[in-house]
């Protein structure tokens, strides 16, 4: 403590503060809290349990995003002879500043052991260089509260707002410790605006070759083009004036795969600034997210989550068999050895030894409680240990006994 601090401390000591709590207020508040607790809904559904922490929510969101990326990557595989057309199309959008579209595909959900399907419909929007908006237009039947949920990212300010019309609540997040892994290098970096959906859709539309003629789509004259490759059929509705796609359908001759549809595609059109505002709509109760993990844990969480999701994807593609060792995901061509090693290394020592350990899940184990990846530690860390489970969700486990039981 320096002189300034000591002086101030003495000054404070000399002041008589009336800060004794009032037991009447404490007791009344206690009653109010008990009433409030009684009104709290019980969190018994699997989804709710999984989604109870922000980190697991992010992990779950990342599962969806990665699955979509895989799908879109697959969609975006260049169709023969398309590169010249694509180059011309992509050249047109170099000046494009905005993008929006509605994405639709069939989604499976699980609630209390029961499985069902629903049509996932969501709206994506972005405005370069750093604004993004996502709107859930539908939700699985057991969770109607997510319908209309809007998330707005401001990567420049490193802030995020999420609000739900269902209960008129809004939550504000600090994104200063939101990281992602660069797929090409394995480097950890701060999250930033991702324009790849737009670029891949354009690439896809540039690859279609068979002209099916002109039709009217929502009062607009469009040309329908189609391509088939292997089991994949891609149909693109292209605006005759701009040459941009306005709708894309991607389906497979194999009926077991659900089609993916992109509608209302708008490229470089005016998007109202208000759509990206970080102010919640009037009448919404705003809260500030209180779950700020230490920055170091967020970095490790990003790495563990990244590897965990690739392991889950590996299992999805291999009859539910997880890799026997992490090197298998590199052998399978999912990521390179270089990327794998970099992701396994400490955030501040990207070329150093692994700080994350993998253990294949035991046969018959419950995926939501079976740890597959965890942070290596010597002495139990004060802030806990990051772990990823076989269902793809991640947790920061602070109770050493619990962790040791999980990996026993």
């Amino acid at each position, binding site marked *: 403590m320096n002189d300034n*601090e000591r002086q101030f401390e003495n000054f404070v000591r000399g002041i*008589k503060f009336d800060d004794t709590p009032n037991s009447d207020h404490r007791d009344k*508040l206690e009653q109010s809290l008990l009433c*409030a*607790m009684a009104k709290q809904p019980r969190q018994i559904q699997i989804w709710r349990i999984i989604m109870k922490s922000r980190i697991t929510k992010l992990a779950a969101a990342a599962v969806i995003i990665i699955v979509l990326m895989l799908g879109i990557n697959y969609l975006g595989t260049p169709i023969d002879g398309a590169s010249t057309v694509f180059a011309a199309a992509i050249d047109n959008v170099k000046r494009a500043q905005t993008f929006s579209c509605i994405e639709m595909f069939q989604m499976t959900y699980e609630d209390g052991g029961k499985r069902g399907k629903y049509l996932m419909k969501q709206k994506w929007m972005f405005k370069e260089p750093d604004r993004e908006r996502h709107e859930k237009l539908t939700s699985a039947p057991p969770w109607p509260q997510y319908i209309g949920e809007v998330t707005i990212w401001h990567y420049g300010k490193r802030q995020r707002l999420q609000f739900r019309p269902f209960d008129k609540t809004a939550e504000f997040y*600090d994104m200063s410790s939101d990281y992602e892994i660069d797929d090409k290098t394995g480097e950890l970096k701060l999250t930033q605006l991702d324009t790849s959906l737009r670029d891949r859709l354009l690439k896809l539309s540039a690859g279609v070759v068979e002209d099916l003629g002109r039709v009217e789509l929502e009062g607009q004259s469009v040309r329908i083009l189609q391509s088939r490759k292997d089991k994949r059929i891609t149909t693109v509705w292209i605006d005759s004036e701009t040459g941009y796609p306005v709708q894309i359908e991607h389906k497979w001759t194999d009926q077991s795969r659900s089609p993916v549809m992109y509608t209302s595609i708008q490229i470089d059109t005016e998007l109202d600034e208000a759509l990206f505002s970080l102010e919640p709509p009037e009448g919404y109760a705003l*809260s500030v997210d*209180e779950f*700020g993990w230490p920055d170091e844990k967020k970095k490790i969480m990003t790495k563990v989550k990244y590897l965990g999701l690739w392991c889950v994807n590996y299992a999805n593609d291999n009859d539910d068999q997880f890799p026997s060792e992490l090197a298998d995901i590199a052998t399978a061509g999912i990521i390179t050895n270089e990327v794998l090693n970099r992701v396994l290394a400490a955030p501040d020592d990207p070329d150093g030894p692994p700080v994350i350990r993998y253990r294949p899940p035991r046969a018959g184990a419950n995926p939501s409680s079976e740890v597959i990846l965890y942070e290596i530690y010597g002495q139990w860390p004060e802030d806990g240990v990051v772990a990823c489970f076989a269902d793809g969700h991640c947790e920061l486990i602070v109770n050493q006994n619990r962790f040791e039981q999980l990996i026993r």
Partner: protein
Amino acid sequence: MAVIADVCSSERIVHVDTDSQLITRARSDAVAFVQLYRGHYEAVFRYCVHRLFERHAAEDVTSQVFLKVVESFHRFEGNSQQFRSWLYRIANNAVNEHLRKTVRHCNLLKAACEQVDNEVADCRESSEKLAVLKQAMLSLKPKYQTVITLRFFENLKLTEIAKIVGSSPGTVRSQLSRALAKLRRKLATDLTD
């Protein structure tokens, strides 16, 4: 209700090392939750009153803090130390929100000064200092008020303050230093006026 009675008759019965177990039990056990609440009520109230300088406002904000805890408790996964930091973060946000919403800086000062004027003569010197401190503190930015309050009124360590405000201990140290320098200038001016 025996547990509650024990808590009532013994202040600070909830020790840090048992809090983690209490936190786990409090998720499904109202009695455990009450025990946890009673163990932390005073700290939250004191923080609020040291930031707001007004008992009634501090009680209102304390209520909001614990109602928020009830609402979000199912999402909290941490040990006793993290629970304490989490409580302070909620309290800090609630106090800042209160100050923003009500724009009560002037009213608070006025009320504080009136209250001070009514103090008995033997407390005059302390009361004058208090009034000056209130004025000086409330003129600081909220982030400076937070670090000063946590450090000098709640006697927290720099590392714990860092966890609460989401910065590094080094940043807290420099914020504290800047805040004290501002406060010192302000206090010197006001005390000599």
